[in-house]
C-alpha cells in the first residue's frame, strides 16, 4: 500500500482541501487540467531486532527513516499541486535474512525506478546491482560506509547519508579549532567500530591531531538493562581509562553502541568525550534550529508525533532531491529526474545554511555536518578557515584527487 494514504488525513486537512481547489495556472508552469503525473518512490529498509540502546532516549522507532521520507513526499506534493505532479511512496521492509536483490526487483516489477534505501552496505550493493539492468536508481539514505562511495561505488547509487570519513573530518576540524589535539582513542571490538576508528585516525592525520594511545573496549555481551548496572559502570569506566598518556579529549569509535554512552563523566581524568558519545558528528539533530530548521522540525513532529533523527533527514533529503528533479524538469520520468540530479545545475536546500550539491565523481551529497552534544548543536563543520578550491564542503571526507571510485 502506498503510505501517502496513511499520512494525508493527518496533515493540515483544511489547507490540503483548499490546495486542491487552487487554480493550476501560470505561464512558466501552465498545468493541464488532466490527472497529475505520478512519481512513485520505493522505500526499502531493514527491520531487525535492534539492540537496546545505552540510553532509553535513543530507543528506535518503528518509522525511523520512512517518517522523513513521508514528510518529503508531503513537501513534494505541496509543490506538485502547482505543477500537476503527485508523489507517493511504497514501503518495503526486509529482514537481515532476506535477499535485497529480490526485494529491489519486486519494487522495480511494480514500475518503481526510484528507490530510497536504508540498508547495510552489503545489501545496498546487492540491491544496486539488481536494479541496474532495469535502469533503476537507488538513493542511499542509511549507509555511512566509505567503500560504497569509493572502491564499491555504483553509477546508479546516489548517497544522501554522510560517510564515516565526512563525520570524522567534521569532528576533527572542530577539535583542532578548539586545540584539543591530543586524543585518547577508544575503539569497540566490532568491525564497524574499527572502520570508524580508521576514519578518525585519517582525520587526525589530516587536521594535525595526535592519537596518544588507542584502546579497545571488548564487547563481552550481556543485557543492557540491569537494575543496578549503574554501580558497576561507575567503577569500570574509570579503571578502563586510567593510566593514559596526557590527552585533551577522549574520542570513542563505538558504532555498535556498546560502551561510548557510558564514557562521559566517568573517565579517570576529567576530559571531554567526543565521537560516538559526548560531542557527536551527525547529519541532523532534533535540537538543530538554525537556518529555518525550526519549520522543518515542527512539520516533522506534526507528521510523526516524535522528533526528527538523522536517518529521517537523510530520507527526507533523498525524496526532496527527487522532487526537485521532477519540478525543475517538469517531468515525472525517472530517467529525466535522475539525469537532472546528476547534472551541474542540481542543488537542494536542506536547512544547513547553504545549498547541497552532488560530488560528480561518486554521487555523494555534499553537506555540512552538525556537532551535537545531545542537547544543542555545538558547532557546524566545515569550520571557518579550512579552505578548498571547489567547495569548503569538500574538506569533509575523501576528495576528488583521493577517490577510488570509477563510475561507469
Amino acid at each position, binding site marked *: 500500500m502506498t503510505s501517502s494514504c496513511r499520512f494525508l488525513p493527518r496533515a*493540515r486537512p483544511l*489547507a490540503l482541501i*483548499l*490546495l486542491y481547489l*487552487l*487554480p493550476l*495556472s*501560470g*505561464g*512558466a*508552469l501552465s498545468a493541464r487540467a488532466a490527472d497529475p503525473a505520478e512519481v512513485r518512490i520505493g522505500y526499502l529498509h531493514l527491520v531487525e531486532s535492534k539492540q537496546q540502546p545505552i540510553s532509553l532516549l535513543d530507543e528506535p522507532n518503528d518509522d525511523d527513516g520512512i517518517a522523513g521520507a513521508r514528510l518529503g513526499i508531503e*513537501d513534494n506534493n*505541496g*509543490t506538485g499541486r*502547482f*505543477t500537476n505532479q503527485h508523489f507517493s511512496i511504497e514501503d518495503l521492509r526486509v529482514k537481515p535474512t532476506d535477499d535485497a536483490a529480490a526485494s529491489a526487483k519486486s519494487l522495480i516489477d511494480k514500475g518503481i525506478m526510484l528507490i530510497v534505501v536504508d540498508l547495510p552496505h552489503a545489501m545496498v550493493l546487492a540491491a544496486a546491482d539488481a536494479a541496474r539492468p532495469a535502469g533503476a536508481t537507488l538513493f542511499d539514505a542509511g549507509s555511512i560506509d566509505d567503500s560504497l562511495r569509493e572502491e564499491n561505488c555504483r553509477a546508479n547509487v546516489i548517497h544522501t547519508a554522510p560517510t564515516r570519513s565526512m563525520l570524522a573530518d567534521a569532528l576533527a576540524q572542530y577539535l583542532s*579549532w578548539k586545540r584539543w589535539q591530543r586524543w585518547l582513542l577508544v575503539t569497540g571490538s566490532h568491525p564497524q567500530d574499527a572502520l570508524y576508528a580508521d576514519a578518525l585516525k585519517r582525520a587526525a592525520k589530516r587536521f594535525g591531531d595526535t592519537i596518544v594511545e588507542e584502546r579497545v573496549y571488548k564487547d563481552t555481551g550481556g543485557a543492557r538493562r540491569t537494575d543496578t548496572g549503574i554501580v558497576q559502570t561507575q567503577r569500570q569506566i574509570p579503571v578502563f581509562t586510567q593510566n593514559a598518556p596526557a590527552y585533551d579529549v577522549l574520542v570513542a569509535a563505538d558504532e555498535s553502541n556498546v560502551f561510548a554512552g557510558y564514557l562521559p563523566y566517568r573517565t579517570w581524568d576529567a576530559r571531554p568525550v567526543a565521537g560516538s558519545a559526548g560531542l557527536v558528528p551527525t547529519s541532523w539533530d532534533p535540537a538543530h534550529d538554525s537556518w*529555518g530548521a525550526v*519549520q522543518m522540525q*515542527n*512539520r516533522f513532529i506534526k507528521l510523526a508525533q516524535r522528533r526528527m533523527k538523522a536517518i529521517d533527514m537523510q530520507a527526507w533529503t533523498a525524496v*526532496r532531491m527527487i522532487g*526537485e528533479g521532477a*519540478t*525543475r524538469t517538469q517531468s515525472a520520468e525517472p530517467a529525466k529526474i535522475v539525469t537532472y540530479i546528476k547534472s551541474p545545475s542540481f*542543488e*537542494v*536546500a536542506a536547512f544547513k*545554511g*547553504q*545549498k547541497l550539491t552532488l560530488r560528480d565523481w561518486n554521487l555523494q551529497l555534499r553537506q555540512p555536518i552538525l556537532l551535537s552534544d545531545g542537547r544543542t548543536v555545538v558547532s557546524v563543520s566545515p569550520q*571557518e*578557515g579550512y579552505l578548498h578550491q571547489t*567547495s*569548503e*564542503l569538500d574538506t569533509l571526507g575523501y576528495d576528488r584527487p583521493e577517490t577510488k571510485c570509477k563510475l561507469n
Partner: protein
Amino acid sequence: MQAQLIGKQGFHQGGRGSFPRRAFPFLALAMTLSTASPGFAYTAYVTNERDNTVSVVDLDKMQTVKTIEVGQRPRGIVISPDGKFLYICAGDDDIVQIVDTKTQEVVGDLPSGPDPELLALNKTGELLYLSNENDALVTIIDVKERKALAQIPVGVEPEGMGVSPDGKIVVNTSETTNMAHFIDTDKRDVVANVLVDARPRYAEWKSDGSEVWVSAEVGGTVSVIDPVKHVVTGKITFSVPGLRSEAIQPVGIRFTKDGKLAFVALGPANRVAVVDAQTHQVEKYLLVGQRVWQLAFTPDQKYLISTNGVSNDISIIDVASLKVIKSVQVGSFPWGVAISPE
C-alpha cells in the same frame, strides 16, 4: 555569554568578520564632516530577533536612542503610511504586535495565525498581508477591524510578501516549494505560480509595476519576473572574488524610486550588491556588517539601511555616493527594518 562567544569566533575567524569594522573608524570620521546639514529626522525601527526588542535609531544622530520590548522572535516589521503604528511579526508568540510610534509601546495585536514571519501593507495601510510559515498560508488582515479576512493556501514555508504598486497583486514566496505565488487581492486567490531558485526569501516590485524581483537565498540568485506573463525573464547572479559561492545568499531587495538601481542584501557574504535595474548587471558590492538580511530606504532615498544579524548592527549606506558611511549598534540579531515617513 554571547559576547564571549562572538569574541572567541572573531579571534579565530580573522578577515571576513573583522574587515568591515576596521573600515568604520575612518568612515565615521568622514561622516562627521558630511552630516552637518540638517533637514531630516527619520527614525529607523529595527527588530532584534534574539533580544525580543525593537531598536529605535535616530537617523539624524545616527545612534540607537531607545529599545522597545516586544514579543518573542520579532522579525518582519512594517510601518503604517502615516507613521503612527508599527506592525511586528512576533513569530514565537504567533501574533502581529502593534506599536504606537508616539508612546513607543505595544498597544495591541492582530490575529495573524501561527508563526508570522514577514508582512506587507497595502498602500493605504488598510490591509496587511502576511505569511504563516508553519501552515503554508498567506493571511489577509483588515488592520482597522483587527480581523483576518482570508487565508490563502500557498507552497511549503511561505515567506516573502510583495504588494504590487496598484495593490492588485501580492507576490508570496515559498521557501521549500521554491515558487513565487501571484495572489489576486480581489479574488483572494492564487492566479499564477512561477518557479524560482532554491529557498526564495523576498519579493520586491519595481515602482512602475513592470517587474518583480525574487531573491533565492540558497540558490544564490535573483529572478526577474514579468508580472503579466508570469515568466522569469532574467536571472541575476553574484560573484565576489575570494568568497565561496555558497556564502552568497540574497535576501532583502530594494529599488530606487526612479527604477534605475537595485540593492540586494547578500546574507553571510556581508555585502549589499548594487545592481543596474535596467541591464541587471551588478555594479558594485558594498561591504556592510555580518549576515545582512533586510534593507530599507529613508523616504528621501538619501540613505539605505541594512540589518546585519551576526554583527548586531545596522549599516547606513549613502545612496548618492554608494558608500557605507556608518554602522550603528542595535540589539542582538537585527532582522527587519522599517523607517518613519518623516
